[in-house]
């Protein structure tokens, strides 16, 4: 021991070392005993520090240079690396802070309680499932199913409560190492998404009027991210026509356990109709019976199966002079995961005059996610339209000049 230490430290140390030999019988120091066991391993491990420097712990400039020459440059700041190298390597759970350990004890006890409650709830559900609905309540089978559903919701809630106070869970989630098959990480991811990303998404789809123009309402419960090859597209971005010529990749992150069957529609509601002097909506892509769940969020529209695709990808186009086109991506949940029959669906679809609302009602679809990107006339658009076989590339749209009424003219003949 260094001579500069206070005598109280020595006393404490002797008390603690005597505590080790009392073993597991002492309840107050249960954590620190396991801590020492762990530390021994760690201390044995970090021996030849200078022989083989690690990128996480090297902080001497000479070793840093050696690492950089070896192709494994040091990670983080020198200050951080030094702190890691000189730390004791104690596990986070076993850090010897008294209040922290007391807090952990409270949390662990609460977790045990929650686990007990989960077990009780599971038993209750099993018992209710086996019982006869009609004998149970005058509501009969319907009442029983409703009750079971609410009990399952409560069970999921309890599962979240059991883990939500764990600092390790929080750390793992913040590091992006959360396992989406577990309810707690799904809950945390959902909360984080709703905190910011969903708000932005809702703002975009309402400001750019996807919501009344394409679908009547949308309460997004899945996260949709758009990607064209390596290009990430934020909701509402303008996308160059050369980029959007190939189908996009979607990242559809669901936060619920059960897999869902969804229908993906990409609709452009801004196609100018010169005859009626208004706009038509055109379907650029339509696919049904696509299964999504929390674990496999990536969805490449080009790689969907043939029987899933109702309308193959049509490159987004905008004529010169027309206002920008909103390519709105809408995800619909199919009711009760009943699959859509392709032949029946194709009978009623008109690609150039696509009615999203009637499609929704016909197949009992609910919008669960929406996003959009925009497109306008650019240098590549002519070539894209030619390749896609869409005519009108050489045509420029212009607004009809509205002649002001005679008494509102700026320079009428009576002035001259």
């Amino acid at each position: 021991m260094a001579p500069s230490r206070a005598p109280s430290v020595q006393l404490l140390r002797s008390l603690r070392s005597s505590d080790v030999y009392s073993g597991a019988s002492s309840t107050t120091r249960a954590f620190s005993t396991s801590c020492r066991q762990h530390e021994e391993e760690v201390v044995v491990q970090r021996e030849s520090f200078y022989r083989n420097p690690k990128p996480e712990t090297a902080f001497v400039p000479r070793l840093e240079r050696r690492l950089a020459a070896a192709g494994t440059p040091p990670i983080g700041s020198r200050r951080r690396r030094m702190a890691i190298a000189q730390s004791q390597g104690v596990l986070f759970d076993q850090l010897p802070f008294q209040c922290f350990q007391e807090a952990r004890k409270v949390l662990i006890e609460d977790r045990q309680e929650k686990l007990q409650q989960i077990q009780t709830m599971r038993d209750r559900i099993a018992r209710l499932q086996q019982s006869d609905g009609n004998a149970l309540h005058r509501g009969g089978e319907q009442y029983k199913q409703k009750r079971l559903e609410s009990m399952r919701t409560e069970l999921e809630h309890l599962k979240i409560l059991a883990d939500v106070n764990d600092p390790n869970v929080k750390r793992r989630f913040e590091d992006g190492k959360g396992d989406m098959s577990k309810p707690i990480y799904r809950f945390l991811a959902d909360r984080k998404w709703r905190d910011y990303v969903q708000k932005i998404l809702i703002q975009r789809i309402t400001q750019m009027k996807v919501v009344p123009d394409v679908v009547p309402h949308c309460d997004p419960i899945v996260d949709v991210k758009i990607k064209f090859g390596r290009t990430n597209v934020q909701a509402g971005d303008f996308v160059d026509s050369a980029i959007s010529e190939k189908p996009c990749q979607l990242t559809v992150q669901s936060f619920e356990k059960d897999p869902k069957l969804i229908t993906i529609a990409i609709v452009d509601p801004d196609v100018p109709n010169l005859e009626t002097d208004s706009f038509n909506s055109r379907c650029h892509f339509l696919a049904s019976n696509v299964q999504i769940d929390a674990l496999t969020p990536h969805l490449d529209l080009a790689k969907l199966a043939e029987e899933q695709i109702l309308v193959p990808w049509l490159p987004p186009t905008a004529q010169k002079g027309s206002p920008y086109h909103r390519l709105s991506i809408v995800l619909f949940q199919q009711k009760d995961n009943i699959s859509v029959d392709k032949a029946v669906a194709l009978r009623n679809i008109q690609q150039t005059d696509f009615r999203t609302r009637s499609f929704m009602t016909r197949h009992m679809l609910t919008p669960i996610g929406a996003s959009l990107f925009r497109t306008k006339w650019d240098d590549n658009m002519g070539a894209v339209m030619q390749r896609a076989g869409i005519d009108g590339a050489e045509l420029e749209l212009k607004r009809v000049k509205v002649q002001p009424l005679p008494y509102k003219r700026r320079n009428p003949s009576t002035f001259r």
Partner: protein
Amino acid sequence: MVCLSLRSALASAFGIANRSSTLGVAPQLQHIIQSTRHHRPQDAAAATFSTSSSTFAKKKALIRYHLYHPTTLTPRPLRFSRNRALRHWTIHRAWNLYRMKVKRRRELELERQYNAMAAANEELRVGAGDGGKLFRKAQMKIGTWSIPERGGGVPIEYARGQVEWVGTVAGGVGGPAKIWDHEWKRA
């Protein structure tokens, strides 16, 4: 061995004991070296224990900086390292959990007491067999507050909430505090 002989020559030239061990070093220093080499786990645990004065002072300084900074409207940010923030969060969650549990326990106790009281009253009303006369008598509030002529009961002064200071408005602005209006008579 050229290397060894060279080293011993240099050592003899500078007057250093030619040994690989630390025997030549001053005893105090030696102690330090030993303690760093044979890094005993108990020592390590004790060294990081939070009661060590220097870390404690640092902690206190940081928290004081956060709490009592002169610009009270915008308190200084409380910046923690990752581990410390997580420890802080853990303690915070445990404290919240504890308080929630205490609150819940109290609520349940109150509910239980209320239900017991209601059940007792109901039993008195229905089960006493006197047509509820005893219950009606029990519900009467006569005699709760004492009237000096009749005596007994709680002094009527306690019917109002007792406070440390009473406003002087009743006795007129600037006048003495008028706590009780002794002259008041029912009209």
